[in-house]
């Protein structure tokens, strides 16, 4: 049932208004700003959860803002896929804001930081709730702008260069999306996300054009989804403060790219057209290279955050791979990985940030024996690593299992080999960090009081535990994702 409700707009507006509100909080008043930021992100999450619950009951929440052209309007329409993305992002945002209050305590320009952090929340919700490709594109561009100040936060040359690179890559991608958007609109006359896609008729008349458009879409959104060879902005964007890397470069920004790809594949092209034009295999093969190659590069990284970034590139490939398999099981695996990877990677980044804050070390080779100094943090890191490899009972396993099922269903067991190889590579670049932290000799002393600020430790522990709980109790994620898959197929 389609409900007309302004809730999606509210979810977008709250953080934007909140960001404006933060403008009036002076730099020195940290307590007020932290409280405000937490309350705003929490309120947004509540609104989003309300919307998600409506959607889970089988409704579609629709909210029109303004007509631009015939068949082209700025509007929100929340279907299960949008609910999945919005729910994951907004809930994790609360944790990330909490963590930021701890991490940013000793940093400069906190006001600017929090303003843009909240602004990105609103824009991400806009992406998730977009009713058509045009709205999606608009917010997609805005996200680049809103996150740029966060990337260059440090203000040094490295950050400036990272910011430039980020901008150029993103705009290049968005340009490609825009190009495809025009052609799509010209061909079909609408850009609405529809069950089963809008391309079915055109696929018969102009298949070659459609393939070109599709490739442009994938490459365009692939920039933010860090599909190789368009990934290189992501590792360099690690110059940003860790909460930014954790939330934006593991969840919000990169997954908005993946979300774009999913939308193009399932709501614009539709499975039938994809199968007809044989486009799924193109995506699957493209990301398979990404999955394996970036894992190999990850092994060579000594900066912890860069290693995590390359791991993100590889893991985002899982999601896209699941989508590209064009089987319900594969898509289930891919979508589950949106949630699972978000939980795991944000935990890992938070741990990395805690290590940087407490010990000031950012190279993996300096972390021998850090488990003595930060046992809880490193335990959480271990849980995250186990999940990344896909070992039971941490949640990463589940998505891997469905992905394997999907590739076997699609009759392409080669992707099982890719997944297994990637799992082994993951083990080879994550486990040494953990084992060296606990079992190698280093000059770290046991902590005298708390090993890290409470505002950082609480999200770390909560998220690590959630990863296990989600891994054990499947009812929390799988039925939701299956609803999404049912809707898309």
């Amino acid at each position, binding site marked *: 049932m389609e409900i007309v409700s302004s809730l999606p707009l509210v979810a977008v507006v709250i953080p934007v208004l909140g960001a404006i509100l933060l*403008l009036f909080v002076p730099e020195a008043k940290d307590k007020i700003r932290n409280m405000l930021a937490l309350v705003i992100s929490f309120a947004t999450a509540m609104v989003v959860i309300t919307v998600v619950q409506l959607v889970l009951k089988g409704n579609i929440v629709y909210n029109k803002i303004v007509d631009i*052209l015939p068949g082209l309007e700025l509007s929100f329409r929340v279907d299960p896929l949008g609910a999945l993305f919005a729910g994951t992002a907004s809930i994790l945002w609360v944790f990330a804001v909490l963590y930021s209050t701890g991490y940013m305590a000793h940093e400069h*320009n906190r006001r*600017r930081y929090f*303003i843009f952090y909240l602004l990105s929340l609103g824009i991400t919700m806009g992406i998730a709730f977009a009713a058509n490709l045009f709205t999606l594109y608009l917010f997609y561009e805005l996200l680049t*702008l809103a996150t*740029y*100040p966060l990337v*260059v*936060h440090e*203000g040094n040359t490295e950050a*400036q260069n990272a*910011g*430039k690179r980020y901008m*150029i890559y993103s*705009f290049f991608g968005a*340009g490609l999306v*825009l*190009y495809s958007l*025009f052609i799509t*609109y*010209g061909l079909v*006359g609408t850009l609405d996300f529809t069950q089963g896609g809008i391309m079915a008729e055109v696929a018969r008349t102009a298949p070659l054009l459609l393939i070109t458009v599709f490739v442009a879409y994938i490459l365009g959104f692939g920039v933010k989804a860090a599909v190789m*060879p368009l990934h*290189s902005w992501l590792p360099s964007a690690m110059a940003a403060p860790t909460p930014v890397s954790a939330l934006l470069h593991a969840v919000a920004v990169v997954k908005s790219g993946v979300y774009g790809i999913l939308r193009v594949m399932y709501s614009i092209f539709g499975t039938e057209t994809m199968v007809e034009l044989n486009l799924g295999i193109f995506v699957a093969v493209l990301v398979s290279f990404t999955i394996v*190659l970036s894992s*190999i*590069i990850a*092994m*060579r990284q000594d900066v912890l955050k860069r290693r995590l970034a390359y791991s993100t590139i590889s893991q985002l490939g899982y999601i896209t791979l699941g989508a590209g398999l064009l089987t319900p*099981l594969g898509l289930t695996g891919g979508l589950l990985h949106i949630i699972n990877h978000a939980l795991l990677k944000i935990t890992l980044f938070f741990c990395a940030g805690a290590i940087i804050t407490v010990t000031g070390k950012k190279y993996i080779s300096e972390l021998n024996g850090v488990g003595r100094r930060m046992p809880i943090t490193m335990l959480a890191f271990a849980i995250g690593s*186990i999940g990344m*490899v*896909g*070992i*039971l*009972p941490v949640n990463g396993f*589940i998505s*891997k*299992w469905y992905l*394997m099922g999907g590739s*076997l*269903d699609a009759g392409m*067991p080669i992707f*099982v*080999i890719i997944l*297994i190889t990637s*799992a*082994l590579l993951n*083990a*080879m670049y994550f*486990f*040494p960090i953990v*084992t060296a932290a606990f*079992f*190698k*000799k280093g000059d770290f002393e046991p902590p005298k009081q708390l090993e890290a600020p409470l505002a950082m430790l609480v999200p770390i522990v909560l998220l690590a535990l959630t990863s296990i709980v989600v891994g054990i*109790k*499947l009812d929390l994620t*799988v039925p939701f994702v299956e609803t999404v898959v049912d809707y898309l197929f």
Partner: protein
Amino acid sequence: MFQGFDLSILPLLAVLIPAVGAGIVAIISFYSSWWRNFAATVITGATLFVILSMYPVVSGGQVISFQLFNIVSPLNLTFRVDSFSFIVALIACFVWLAATIFSLSYMEHEQNRGRFFSILLLTLSGTVGVPLAGDFLSLLLFFEIMSISSYVLVVHTQTDEAYSAGDLYLYLGVAGGMSILAGMALFYFRNGTLAIAPATMTAPGIDIVVPIAAILMIIGFGIKAGMAPLHIWLPRAHPVAPAPASALLSGVMIKTGAYGIISVVNVMLIPSLGPSVAQHVSGLYTEFWSMVSGMGYVIIWIGIVTMFMGVILAIIQENIKKMLACSSISQMGFILVGVGVAGYLKYEGAMGMAGASYHIINHALFKSALFLAAGVIAYKLGELNMYKLGGLWKKLPFTTLVVIIASLGIAGFPFFNGYASKTLLHHALVEAYEHYGVTALLEAERIFMISAAGTVLYYLKFIYLVFLRRPPEELADSINKIKGEPRSMKLGMAMLAVMIVFIGFNPGYLLNMLIIPSVSTFVFCPGFIEHHIVGINFFAASDIISSLVVLGLGALAFAIGLKSGLFSMSIPAWMGQEFFATQFGKMMVSLWNGISNVFVSILGAVGKGFSVVFQTGFSILQGLDYRPGKSDTLRFINLSNIDFDVILIMGILAGALVVLFYLQFGIFGIGI
């Protein structure tokens, strides 16, 4: 006794008690070491009690099933306890209790005791869970819990040696887990079930997927079981752990690998419709049967190679614990032969399965006893090189007795437990030869005997060098200072030694109580079991004679080795186990570096190219010098970090948008 109590929850309890206990022990260990030791022992004991209380149900041939819905995997978490899984869980937990009691005093000298006891319990949870699991995915869950947590035991001492051995252990463990997972995925998405029950694998017919899935899973479990050539981690990882942990790694945990292989063979066997029915079922079955038979044949030979290689490796070791670890490889070979025969002979393979499961029990007992004894030596002297030790029987009479009992057990001397299982395995191998008359199996039987003799040889060497001969000068002083074993060590070893002797004198008792019910749960022809295994006379003259011949051969070889001084010769480095492991590792690393170097340089070049383009583009933009400096209007929002050129790009894009829109509508004639 259990009126009104749902028995089916017992398997879950058996897994949960140690898992929760691990947390409790971890917390207690911050406060009191006495209570920590107490809690660890009691929790292990409670687990043993829970497993024992399943006996009344299981011995009646019933099966305990339990399910938790939608937990852990897309399937459910299931438990299924039949007699066979009961035995494996029981023996694991019994040995665990002995080792825990032993470690109460052993660990006094070690660091991080809280971590050790806590992880020990977590590992117990996984190890007990493997046999109790009702489907392969649940099994894999416990298998992984065991693999990962036992890594902490392997690297417990945190020396460089332990760390590098632990690496090999961890990565091979992960690879094994992934191999099992891949096999399982093939299996599940073809058949829609992963239940560990006969014939599940054949459900929708026979195709290439079945053997691939089975082989992947056998490889995965084989890594844990130390199956040649996947054993390379074992002689490195087992000895570096603290002695009680080595006892459990070598005595119990590798059995989970054997259990896994047995389960895989089990799901491939088609229920015994009786040979007559099997005959007139279509050719499909015949085809499948010949495949199973072929795989069984391969497993027999892998077993033979494993046992022989293990013996050779064990003979050349100097370090007691390394020798024991190599001996474990060899003994796993014996078990594999039994499993292989079971697959090879299909319905008539009950003897092989009986021998294998009997040997699983026996090996757990004597190998753990031997490792614990080695632990006493390490605890007292800190020296494990056999050539530097001697004369310990005077100072450690109890340990000497335990070592002699366990060695007689492992050597298969009549009236000690190994005799019973080796006799069964020998019978099985002979049957395998007689059934199809493949002459190669006659050679296999010879290697089997030679390996048994070799086992005698290296245990004689161990006893003579360490306990009986006069102590060498360097250590004589410290040996003289030894005063007996601590009580808890004695208790731990005594528990195992008593069982060895008990089983040795009543081989039929255990056979009837546990082995025959367990073999009957498989699909073997009941008539065969009735006929050949029930009431088997272990002390038939021919069997005793053949075991004495083996003993004599071993003793002779030992005498020759001792006289000629062959034992004191050290083998050239290039033949050594270490050499292969390290060189292989180095080779892999350099290969790896080579590959990744190529990728990295290609990507680096691409990246460079991109950045040159960007740099040029930027310098052109900056050359235009539109930079207005700090803007007054924007000062309120501190935007000074956003470069002007970015805003310029935005402008260009916005302009492009307008132009393109115009073109778009112009071309397609929609109009504004």
